[in-house]
């Protein structure tokens, strides 16, 4: 499967949040790096069909992002999300299983499997409002995976996770990346170094770099600091990457 973004742009009034971003993603894990305000969340919302682009298009093997068929392939974890106050952890995941079209029996089985995978089986009966931030994030990851998505979009998924939870999360995402397209945004460089096959970097709404990152490129952290330090402009980024 190919997830294609073609000259995606989003404009709010006089400000441009995302500026003519184009890329193609295949199965594997791609990390999207960028500072706060770079446009990562806006880009991800357009990739999930939650936000209409001002111009440009998103599709997966020709299926447009605005269609039900596209959303059926999708798993999404936004940066911030809520829950209905009466929901238990199990209710939360089951609710989204229903919205994703799973029948009750499958929804129940997948919910239990995923709660086990994210380490929440013991808390399945607890109300969402009693959970810590990290546990809530794990519940969010579980609902994103409940329909075995072919495209997984995660916006700052490791926020709030403790080191142990982060290790478990990385392992899970690497596994899913073996068979699905995974795009996760973060400003934690080590997450990208540990999990991602490919890296994209955004700054001021534009994609300033994308490709495979390995040891021959040097330290990703250094490159990132250079790219996103206050004085770094676009030219500096290209020089550092040797592009």
């Amino acid at each position, binding site marked *: 499967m190919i997830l294609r973004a073609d000259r995606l742009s989003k404009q709010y009034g006089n400000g441009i949040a995302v500026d003519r971003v184009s890329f193609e993603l295949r199965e594997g894990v791609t990390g999207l790096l960028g500072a706060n305000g770079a446009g990562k969340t806006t880009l991800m*919302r357009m990739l*999930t*069909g*939650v*936000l209409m682009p001002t111009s440009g298009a998103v599709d997966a093997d020709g299926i447009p992002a605005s269609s*039900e*068929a596209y*959303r*059926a392939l*999708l798993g*999404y974890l*936004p940066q*911030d*999300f*809520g*829950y*209905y*106050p*009466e929901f238990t952890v199990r209710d939360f995941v089951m*609710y*989204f299983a*229903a*919205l*994703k*079209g799973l029948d009750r029996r499958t929804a129940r089985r997948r919910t239990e499997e995923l709660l086990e995978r994210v380490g929440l089986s013991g808390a399945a009966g607890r109300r969402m409002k009693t959970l810590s931030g990290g546990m809530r994030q794990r519940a969010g990851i579980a*609902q994103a995976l409940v329909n075995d998505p*072919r495209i997984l979009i995660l916006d700052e998924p490791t926020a709030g996770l403790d080191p142990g939870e982060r290790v478990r999360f990385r392992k899970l995402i690497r596994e899913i990346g073996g*068979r699905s397209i995974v795009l996760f945004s973060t400003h934690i460089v080590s997450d990208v170094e540990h999990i991602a096959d490919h890296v994209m970097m955004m700054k001021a709404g534009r994609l300033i770099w994308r490709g495979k990152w390995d040891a021959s490129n040097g330290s990703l952290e250094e490159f990132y600091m250079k790219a996103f330090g206050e004085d770094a402009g676009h030219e500096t980024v290209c020089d550092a990457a040797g592009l």
Partner: protein
Amino acid sequence: MNRALRAQIRAAFSYPEPTRKRAFLRKLRPPGVGMIEMVLTQAAYIRGRVWVAAGAALIPALLGAFRLPGNAARLMGALLPFSAGIAVLETRRSRDYSMAELERATRFSLRSVVFARMLAIGAVDLGVILLSAAALSARSGLPVPRTTAEISAPFLAAAWAGLYIERTPLGRRHGHLSMAASALISALALGGEDVGLSLSALPSGAWMAASGALAVLTAREVCITLSRTEEWA
């Protein structure tokens, strides 16, 4: 047939493993899910108090039909606006609890979720109104259409007002303004006679016209609400 023998038969019927299964199944688009199933799914997640409010309105109808036939329609008219108000609040739950973005990104989309909720609650409220009208008419001798119009008018007025308020900036910020509208309409329905509003003396035609107009206005508000749900996320 014992287990060992079944196992032997299974072994006898075994065939080479399919080689293209995984790749095929991953490409397969999921089958469609009908609206009825969607409505039933959403109905399961509507809070109990919504159903209690809808069902509670039946009680005065049944009691009133046998104990207070003259006042039963007024009592119904006073209670049903609250059913409408609670139903309107259900439509904003996704927004109030920051679930809209997640719901928006699912197969069924936020619009379908809200529509399904409205349909589920609307169907129950309609059932309550029709049952109540039948019970009250049987007792009072008034025609069923007239009684239906008389008790549904306050409900529709509250639903229309609530949905309209919800889409104003003030209504979006303050979730309970729509309930305030329901309370006002309820007070009018209950106390109108005491302040000179002889609503019960209105002819059947006037009631039918009023409830018909309110139904159209409410349907319009429902359409506008649905068309704007995608902006919530």
